[in-house]
């Protein structure tokens, strides 16, 4: 319990840091969103209208500390203001819209890669030097070192454009309305296939290698040998004695990779026009939609924090040495 409280305290501090950073970031940068929005192309707005618009969006001048407190209050109440680009939609609406999709993409791909990566890592370590290991380990290294962009682009061109096997834009077919129908669900699945596969490829190598190396380090442990000496079946020893212990460090890695996955999903979403947070963030950056950018960073930080929290808790749950009765 105490451990949980300590961690929670840390998360609070971390979040506060991130929020503060978030506040100062746009204020340190040149150019303000309204001017950018209306001066980039087409007909620039006259200065007078820009001034009026700025006021509407709440870009008030005033002492920095005052702005900062107002900002902190808005963070606490999670009232992030309205999007500039999607005005008058609020940041919450804009983010809420895209969050579901990112959760779906990131969640599914993470689960898949954690599952497949861990299992194949376990098998590779157990048969270290065997053919599976000789193929899988270098392969996952290679996969790990291919940027998500490159992967997504190649997928899109090969399977989307050239072979035309899978849809490569947006989250579901344009003609469908969200509904609980097979048609809609299958459309969602087929649209998510390529983004998910490319995300899985980005992540899977990491899981595989982490667990493989962990397990190899554990193989010499006496309790593994003892498991075998007890006459237990290989699979039982492999999973209950080896993998379970080797997974522990993977869980921390798991939390760390959430950051990587968020990054990867960002790119993947941009490439596949997937309506998730990443795409929204990129769009917001391009159009200097500060409120949305700020909201995004907050949400992503929160996501990281919750991932860490879950990992912490899972660790405590899985490792009795940390548990207290």
């Amino acid at each position: 319990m105490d451990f949980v409280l300590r961690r929670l305290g840390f998360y609070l501090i971390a979040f506060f840091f991130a929020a503060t950073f978030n506040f100062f970031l746009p204020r340190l940068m040149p150019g303000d969103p309204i001017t950018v929005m209306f001066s980039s192309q087409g007909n620039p707005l006259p200065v007078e209208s820009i001034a009026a618009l700025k006021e509407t969006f709440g870009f008030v001048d005033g002492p920095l500390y005052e702005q900062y407190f107002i900002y902190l209050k808005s963070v606490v109440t999670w009232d992030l203001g309205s999007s500039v680009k999607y005005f008058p939609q609020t940041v919450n609406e804009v983010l809420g819209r895209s969050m579901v999709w990112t959760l779906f993409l990131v969640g599914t791909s993470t689960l898949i890669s954690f599952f497949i990566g861990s299992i194949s890592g376990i098998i590779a370590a157990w048969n270290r030097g065997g053919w599976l290991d000789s193929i899988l380990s270098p392969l996952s290294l290679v996969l790990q070192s291919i940027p998500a962009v490159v992967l997504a682009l190649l997928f899109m061109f090969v399977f989307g454009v050239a072979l035309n096997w899978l849809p490569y834009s947006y989250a579901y077919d344009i003609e469908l309305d969200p509904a609980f129908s097979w048609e809609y669900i299958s459309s969602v699945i087929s649209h998510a296939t390529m983004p998910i596969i490319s995300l899985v490829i980005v992540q899977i190598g990491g899981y595989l290698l982490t667990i493989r190396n962990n397990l190899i380090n554990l193989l010499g442990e006496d309790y593994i040998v003892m498991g075998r000496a007890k006459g237990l079946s290989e699979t039982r020893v492999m999973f209950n004695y080896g993998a379970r212990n080797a997974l522990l460090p993977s869980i921390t890695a798991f939390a760390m990779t959430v950051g990587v996955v968020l990054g990867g999903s960002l790119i993947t979403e941009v490439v596949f026009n997937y309506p998730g947070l990443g795409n929204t963030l990129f769009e917001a950056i391009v159009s200097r939609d500060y409120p949305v950018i700020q909201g995004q960073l907050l949400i992503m930080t929160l996501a990281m924090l919750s991932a860490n929290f879950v990992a912490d808790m899972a660790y405590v749950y899985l490792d009795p040495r940390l548990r207290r009765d």
Partner: protein
Amino acid sequence: AAEQDDKAVLNIAPVQVTSWVRNFNPYNQTTILPTTNEYIYEPLAIYNPMQGGKIHYRLAEKIEFADDAKSVVFTLRKGVKWSDGQDFDANDVKFSFDMIKANPALDTRAIWQRISAVEVIDEQHVKFSFPEPDSGAAIEIVRVPVVAEHIWREVKDPITFTNENPVGTGPLTEIERFTTRVYVQCRNPHYWDNSTLQVDCVRLPQLANNDQVLAAAQKGELDWFGSFLPDIDKTYVSKDASNHKYWFPADSMVAFNLNLESKNPGNKKAFNDVNFRRAVSMSMDRSSMVNIAGYGYPTLNEYPSGLGAGYHSWNNDEVDKKFGQYSRYDMKAAKKLLKQAGYEDKDGDGYVDNPDGSAIAFSIIVPNGWTDWVNTVQIAVDGLQEMGINAKVATPEAASWTSALIDGSYDAAINAYFSGVTPHLMYNTAFHSSQLDKTRMSSTRFTNPELDVLLDKFYTTTDKAAQQQTMDQIQMIVAENMPFIPVFNNPSWYQYNTERFEGFFNADNPVAKPQPHPGTPERLLHLLSLKPKS
């Protein structure tokens, strides 16, 4: 989809977005849907620059200026109804303008700087007064959307109002389907010009970028759109040569700017010498810019006045004769002129310096990510370097680029100018002393009292010949001083597919600007001229 089968549905892609947001507020500048203006809110009239400023009357039947050009009276068409069946009249017009006045954030065209009052004369007549004689004001007045008083009176905050179920006077007011991915907007049952309108609905798929537009276009899913497509003959036309077509008439003028008030003394000296500016102009390989950087889509602009093909009817031939040589690519002449004017490499760093020995070195700024422009500037820099001028490319963010142009904290830049109904808008925003620091158009900071007088004079009359005469003089002054260095006119992006519809504007049928984008009121004319193929 079934009930749409018997309807004539036109697929258009006027903008690229990642998601549709249901917002039909015509004064909104951000999420406003591209079918709001003109299609829901019919303009009073449409000025057609392609036809020398011809007026196509829509909700108005007549526009009459007072003789002193200090006021204008619009006569409204009889029998026009809002899409909910209520009558449209002069009070709606007055209400709309007054609302904008009360909420400056809605006044996105700064109309209240040009008008001083709106009066309802009777149900059919409304009068706008100006602080000064201004025969150009009507051009701006008709760009302001007119909304229904009986609806908007109830709206508490017109700035955040999203107007989800719009009531309009235009041809397409009924939203049949709306998702973040696609929406369909159909015929207004009460439309006054329903007999002309042959298109029952427009359908707008959400497309986020050029690649997606291209993919959809290749499959023939778009009827009318305007997007940059690389190698268009190969990627689009060749997929169905008999139906896939495009036309890129000249649009806004693109020019290089040298800041006459550069903070760098050496540069400032050089930039203020017209010979230097001319040499720079002659070093610009405009056709490479058009063909390589612009894929051949832009229109070459070798008018020393920068007027451009779009306004050719206004052109003063004298100007071309006198100064035309300076706006054509001629490296030899450029080098010669530079040398004659005393620019030589004095300090031996390989780059030319001012006659007094001070160094010239500058970066040309171009917004990051505007690839065709970046490439254009690189071609320009190639030419400048060849001439021995120490020029580089710099790619700040669009925001920094804009503010540098507005506040004059740059050396050199590439820039685009307004294209109005007449060339006056471009010249006025670029060179009138009152416009300094207001927009990025005034970036070269070139002003000239004589020019101010001429620019002010242009709209004091409604007489076309007098206007032409003023414009001739303006062109002469600009060409003589070369305050900007025009290189080409941006293309108006416009592609179409004749498989399902006919009547598209094109080079053979150049009725008006053809692009479907918001901000082009002529697209209403275009819509009305389309007919489904039987």
